[in-house]
């Protein structure tokens, strides 16, 4: 950067000087040539005077017409001056301005000096001649002498003196010098001048370059070096810049010094703040993972039911909770709760609430009693008046009865068949504020395929960018479409819609959900013998499913089972050969076969129904039928076992 400025500057100034130099050249040339011409003019004029005088003295005056004697005199003295002086030719001519004639009287020249001089044959001849203005002025006597560049003879300069002879005839004594000579003279003189000018020019340019370098290049370089160092290390290396000088660079240096001081301070402040923030963030992260540890896993697959749950805090840790806990072989505790507020204090309160609810449940209490005792415990030690809404229930998987009580929480929904209904009873007081509150208890029956949906108000109060609420209507609508979607997880299904609604808006509250699906499941171990199929058939027919559905399931199960018997274990099945048959249904039916035979993926190479040709192939018919009557087929090989799962959706009979 700095170098190009000096160079740029110098180049521009040099250009200017060059221009000036050119003008000086032209000017000085003119002056020199003028001077030389002047000098030459005076010189030749003097010579022509001598020329005329000499001739005058010799003869008794000049007269025309000339005789040969006169001509000799002219030429004698002409030759004389040509050889002694620096002229190229001399001649005399009689001029008549009235009749515009000219008569050459005598001609002398230096050897080979000028071309095109008239030959001797011209002498004595009277020729026509048009006189120029200057020539006329001179001949009339207005000018004392006459100098011109001769047009008669190429490339020469004439000087003439006018003389009148005794008879009143005008005679011009002309002396000429070739221009070559003149130009040579000019050039010699000019050369010296030019050289001097050039030297001066170069000297000035060099001096200029060094001056600029010193006053621009060096200070600029210093400043930019200081800046580069500062940027690289983030702090100033070395001393401050020199602010003396009073010029613009000094100003920049001063500003730079002050700026770097301020940046240094600022950076120190930020570093302190960052350290503080990092520390706090780490603590929150730790708290968040501890909290996650309190809550049970997001998924539980029990023989009689399936639980899916999730809790997403608005900040690093949340004040919501979900919980489930198998209390004994039949009963399972299901809870959802929402502590007022978010963040650290809410989550601490949440942990306490969770533990209390669990402990009272484990003591064998029913939901209403659980809430009553928890409320008392919380309100006894709640100086900050944090309150909790909670819904507590116990599900008995043998009887299908769900007993519950509510403390101010959002009422859950039950999906039954194609419809949804909301749990009605009970919206009692919040937990944690007043002692000895009473809670009412109620019960309802859940059947195979029913889904119980619990949630906190983080769902219905989720906001989008325009601060509109997700709302209960949209929530109910979404629940209604769950069956038809054939999605597996209700919590995932609801979450998708909430996410779609909120878009890029920040999450305003903790979002928590729990879904419990009642299902029927049986599991049987079978030997690889086609006769065992009878047991499979009985299991399927014993389920409370529509007949046509049962028949389809039987066909699918039979084909696969027979296939496994035929191929998985060879001619003689080993003694530990086993096939596990799992039959599960809620809103869909799952048939699972697990065998420890040779690894084989039946989903490979299944012919499409359109391509099946019974005349050609007999094999593969079973698979074709099995996979066609079911909706989904999944194969996995885990721990050396083939696991084939077939799923058929339960289409509700139109009512």
């Amino acid at each position, binding site marked *: 950067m700095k170098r190009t400025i000096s160079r740029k500057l110098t180049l521009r100034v040099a250009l200017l000087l060059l221009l000036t130099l050119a003008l000086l050249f032209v000017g000085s040339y003119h002056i020199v040539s003028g001077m030389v011409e002047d000098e030459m003019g005076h010189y030749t004029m003097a010579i022509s005077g001598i020329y005329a005088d000499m001739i005058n003295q010799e003869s008794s005056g000049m007269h025309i017409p000339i005789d040969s004697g006169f001509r000799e005199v002219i030429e004698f003295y002409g030759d004389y001056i040509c050889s002694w002086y620096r002229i190229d030719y001399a001649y005399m001519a009689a001029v008549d301005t009235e009749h515009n004639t000219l008569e050459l009287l005598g001609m002398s020249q230096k050897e080979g000096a000028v071309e095109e001089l008239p030959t001797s044959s011209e002498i004595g001849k009277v020729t026509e001649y048009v006189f120029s203005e200057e020539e006329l002025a001179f001949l009339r006597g207005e000018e004392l002498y006459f100098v011109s560049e001769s047009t008669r003879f190429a490339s020469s300069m004439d000087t003439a003196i006018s003389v009148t002879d005794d008879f009143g005839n005008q005679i011009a004594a002309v002396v000429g010098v070739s221009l070559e000579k003149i130009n040579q003279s000019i050039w010699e003189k000019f050369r010296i001048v030019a050289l001097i000018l050039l030297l001066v020019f170069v000297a000035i340019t060099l001096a200029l370059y060094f001056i600029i370098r010193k006053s621009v290049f060096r200070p600029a370089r210093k400043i930019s070096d200081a800046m580069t160092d500062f940027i690289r290390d983030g702090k100033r290396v070395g001393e401050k810049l020199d602010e003396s000088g009073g010029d613009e660079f000094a100003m920049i240096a001063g500003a730079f010094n002050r700026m770097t001081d301020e940046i240094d301070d600022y950076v120190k402040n930020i570093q302190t703040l960052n350290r503080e923030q990092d520390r706090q963030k780490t603590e929150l992260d730790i708290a968040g993972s501890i909290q996650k540890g309190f809550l049970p896993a997001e998924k539980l697959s029990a023989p009689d039911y399936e639980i899916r749950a999730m809790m997403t805090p608005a900040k690093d840790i949340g004040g919501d909770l979900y919980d489930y806990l198998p209390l004994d072989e039949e009963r399972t505790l299901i809870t959802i709760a929402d502590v007022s507020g978010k963040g650290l204090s809410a989550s601490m309160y949440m942990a306490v609430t969770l533990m209390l609810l669990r402990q009272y449940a484990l003591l064998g209490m029913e939901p209403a009693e659980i809430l009553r005792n928890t409320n008392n415990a919380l309100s006894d030690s709640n100086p900050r008046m944090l309150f909790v809404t909670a819904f507590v229930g116990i599900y008995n998987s043998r009887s299908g009865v769900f007993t519950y009580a509510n403390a101010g929480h959002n009422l859950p929904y039950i999906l039954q068949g194609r419809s949804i209904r909301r749990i009605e009873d009970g919206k009692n007081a919040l937990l944690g504020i007043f002692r000895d509150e009473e809670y009412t208890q109620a019960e309802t029956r859940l059947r195979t395929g029913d889904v119980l949906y619990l949630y906190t108000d983080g769902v219905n109060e989720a906001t989008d960018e325009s601060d509109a609420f997700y709302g209960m209507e949209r929530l109910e609508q979404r629940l209604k479409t769950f069956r038809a979607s054939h999605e597996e997880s209700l919590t995932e299904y609801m979450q998708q819609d909430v996410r779609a609604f909120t878009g890029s808006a920040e999450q305003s509250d903790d979002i928590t959900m729990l879904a419990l699906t009642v299902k029927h499941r049986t599991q049987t171990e079978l030997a690889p013998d086609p006769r065992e*199929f009878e047991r499979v058939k009985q299991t399927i027919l014993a389920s409370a499913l529509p007949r046509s559905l049962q*028949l389809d399931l039987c*066909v699918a199960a*039979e084909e696969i089972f*027979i296939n496994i018997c035929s191929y998985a274990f060879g001619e003689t099945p080993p003694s530990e050969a086993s096939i596990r048959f799992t039959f599960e249904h809620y809103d869909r039916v799952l048939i699972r076969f697990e065998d420890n035979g040779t690894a084989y993926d039946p989903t490979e190479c299944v012919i499409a129904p359109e391509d099946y040709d*019974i005349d050609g192939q007999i094999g593969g018919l079973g698979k*074709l039928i099995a996979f066609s009557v079911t909706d989904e087929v999944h194969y996995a090989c885990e721990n050396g076992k083939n696991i084939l799962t077939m799923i058929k959706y339960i289409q509700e009979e139109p009512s």
Partner: protein
Amino acid sequence: MTITKTNENGKITLRPEGWLDTASSPELGAAVDAIEAADELVLDFAQVEYMASAGLRQVVAAHKKAKALNAAFSVIHVGAEVMSIFRLTGIDKKMEIRE
């Protein structure tokens, strides 16, 4: 599984009752094999609620047998469930199958 056989002047009708699965299908096969001559062979599936691939194969075998005997062949009174299996495998296009 019981199979009732009737013969009306060369038109032999076999009427299986029950499920046509892997265990019971061979019985149908045996009944078909026992036929020595016929002008027409009819399988009446009015009492067949269920058919697996083993049963399907027996139907195909019966069709072949009928051809060998130069007899006409048809399957009648087929229920919706069993009909869907026939359709699935394209059998309904290869032979006479009626509801």
